């Protein structure tokens, strides 16, 4: 058996690769200038404070520096990126009112079907704007607000949003947070009132259809005291031979004793620069659970951060990253323990093949205030071939003696013993290897609702059939 290898193919993204002719109603010019930012602001009918916020963010963007520590983003030229593309429709709450080509896009992605079967509400964004937003009546009757952020900015929650918009991720955080602040468009606002448990998930799906465009949606979720929510986001795009950019922002406010699970299946096309920022603040007794599957993009920088701000707050991060040919995916997480009795658990897997590069990068910070806090980090990487790379860069910064911090990391290949064992049970070598790779990512798939776990497994497994040679 020595020297034999299973060829594990790239994740098959052809399923997501269909595209429709662009019929956008409006798009700004390429590049980034104050005039373009003002134009976006006018188009979106921003309140005055938001217009000023955008221009201030642009100033910060212009004086911020590019990151020099991760994958190269030299192929991304902001002069060629269109930051705002409005599709030829207005947002609708009725599926039949959505234009045919856009409707067909989301139907092929299975969104309406998922809405009928397993979701409490759906938001669908096409390029820069939400085209469909709906929430089940019984969920709305509980007082749950699930709407597009622009509507919320002018509604009864306007002050709440102003108070919290880009407060967890300020534009000064990094260059692409500043870019987001300047040109953000679309995304969702969710408010779950105290004590309300949303039993089935809400989902937002982001589709970028226009070549050379950027998507900058903003997701703001507030789960009030004692409430519970599972929010799912999915994203995809057809592949073009020009660079596309995703610089979204997610801000999660988890109240006292509240629970928020935030699941992402990211499957951007391989011309995408995914420079996304996600952050959660968790109050006393609350818990945030991140479930993250990173399969797409040419380059990713993605490190969801949890700030444990109240006594007994908890964070869990479960992630899988699959880097195939032409991909450099730099993913991980950051957790800041800033209150007593807080705890965190990080469990990640990464798979590299066909020259793909995956990097796990994490930081656990336990401050002086975080007495009796606990953190455990476990990351495992699987190298399918020697053309690929897999790096693990975890960091720990502990500033109190009353903490327990554990970390373990492993990098290796598919175990010959495990393959041999499965073969002795009558499973072919090809199937055995495929089974092991698939099982390797089980930490994430078991955390997702069944329909999404199936989708994720399909992403990994469909193409794992391969010749041995």
């Amino acid at each position, binding site marked *: 058996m020595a020297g034999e290898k299973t060829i594990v193919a790239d994740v098959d993204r052809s399923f997501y690769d269909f595209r429709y002719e662009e019929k956008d109603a409006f798009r700004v010019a390429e590049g980034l200038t104050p005039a373009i930012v003002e134009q976006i602001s006018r188009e979106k009918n921003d309140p005055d404070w938001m217009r000023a916020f955008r221009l201030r963010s642009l100033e910060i963007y212009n004086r911020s*520096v*590019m*990151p*020099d*520590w*991760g994958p*190269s*983003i*030299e192929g*991304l*030229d*902001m002069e060629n990126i269109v930051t705002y593309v409005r599709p030829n429709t207005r947002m609708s709450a009725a599926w039949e009112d959505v234009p045919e080509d856009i409707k067909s896009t989301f139907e092929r992605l299975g969104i309406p079907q998922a809405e009928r079967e397993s979701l409490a509400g759906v938001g669908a964004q096409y390029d820069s704007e939400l085209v469909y937003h709906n929430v089940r009546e019984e969920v709305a009757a509980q007082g749950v607000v699930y709407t597009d952020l622009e509507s919320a900015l002018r509604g009864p929650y306007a002050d709440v949003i102003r108070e919290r918009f880009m407060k967890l991720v300020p534009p000064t955080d*990094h*260059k692409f947070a500043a870019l987001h602040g300047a040109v953000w468009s679309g995304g969702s606002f969710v408010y779950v009132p105290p004590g309300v448990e949303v039993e089935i998930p809400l989902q937002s799906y982001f589709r970028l259809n226009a070549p050379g465009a950027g998507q900058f949606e903003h997701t703001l979720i507030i789960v009030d005291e004692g409430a519970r929510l599972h929010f799912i986001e999915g994203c995809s795009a057809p592949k073009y031979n020009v660079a596309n950019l995703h610089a979204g922002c997610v801000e999660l406010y988890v109240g006292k004793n509240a629970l928020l699970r935030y699941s992402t299946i990211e499957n951007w096309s391989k011309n995408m620069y995914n420079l996304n920022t996600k952050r959660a603040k968790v109050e006393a007794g609350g818990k945030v659970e991140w479930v993250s599957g990173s399969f797409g993009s040419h380059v990713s920088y993605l490190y969801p951060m949890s700030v444990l701000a109240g006594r007994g707050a908890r964070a869990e991060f479960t992630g899988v990253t699959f880097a195939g040919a032409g991909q450099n995916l730099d993913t991980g997480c*950051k957790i800041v323990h800033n209150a007593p009795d807080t705890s965190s658990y990080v469990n990640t897997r990464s798979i590299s093949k066909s020259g793909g590069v995956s990097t796990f*990068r*994490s*930081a656990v*910070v336990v401050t*002086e205030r975080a*007495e009796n806090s606990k953190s455990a980090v476990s990351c495992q*990487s699987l*190298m*399918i*071939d*020697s053309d*690929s*790379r*897999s*790096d*693990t*860069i*975890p*960091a*720990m*910064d*502990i*500033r*109190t*003696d*009353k*903490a*327990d*911090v*554990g*970390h*373990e*990391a*492993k*990098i*290796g*290949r598919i175990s010959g013993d495990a393959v041999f064992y499965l073969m002795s049970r009558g499973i072919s070598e090809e199937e055995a290897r495929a089974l092991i790779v698939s099982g390797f990512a089980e930490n994430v798939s078991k955390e997702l609702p069944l329909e999404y776990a199936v989708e994720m497994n399909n992403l990994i497994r469909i193409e794992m059939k391969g010749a041995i040679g």
Partner: protein
Amino acid sequence: MITVNKPLANTFGWLHGNGTQIEAPASTEEITLTAAAGEERIVALPDSPSARITVSVAENAVLRLIQVRRGGDGGVCDIHVDCAENAHFEWYRVVLGGAASYDNCSVTLRGDGSSFLTELGFRLGGDERYDVNCEAIHLGKKTRSDIHAAGVLRDRAFKILRGTIDLRRGCAGSVGSEMEDVLLMDETVRNQSIPVILCGEEDVEGNHGATIGRLDEELVYYLASRGVSREQVYEIMAQAKLNAVISRIPDEETRLLLTENGAEGETI
């Protein structure tokens, strides 16, 4: 075109991994150590404020380097090691304080079957600082690296351990392993650890484990039930961590010196 510029401001440069560089003083002592083919050497170097040590270990040779820092102002020690086929290098480093100490030990496992072992022990208190970078670069096939670090921080002491296992393409059959165990004794200490594994080869294993913090409560409870106070338990365990490193030093004289001069048995 976007130009790559300066790094992002961040909590403690965690995004940069182990990229930090420290400049050695001009008065640096240059030391060259070699082990000829088949030779087995133990070298115990006296402490030096600033030293650059170049080590070459030939085929089938073994070189064991022992260094103890006893406090004072600290200093800079920069070690570069090259291991030929089946060569073996060991670095025993005990740091018993020092206002500001910087160590770098970079070992290139060039030859097939070569190996590297580090046993690092530290005991820091007051306002002492210790910054150590330990790197194993696996180039040859079936190479092995083991980085073991254990120590105790007290008062306002600061320590950062940057450990890198770099498994380069072509080092098939290699194994890299890093373990760290740090006991924190006061609420004002600060410990940073960045254990990096870089992997460009499929047929390898890289492992890392770290335990940082206080003692296991069950252990404390058990010993307390036997009449040992909480403070005494911590003292015993702190000493045990350092003793474990000292007991592995392959030079009796150094071991005795450390024992007699207070590395063992002394309240820290």
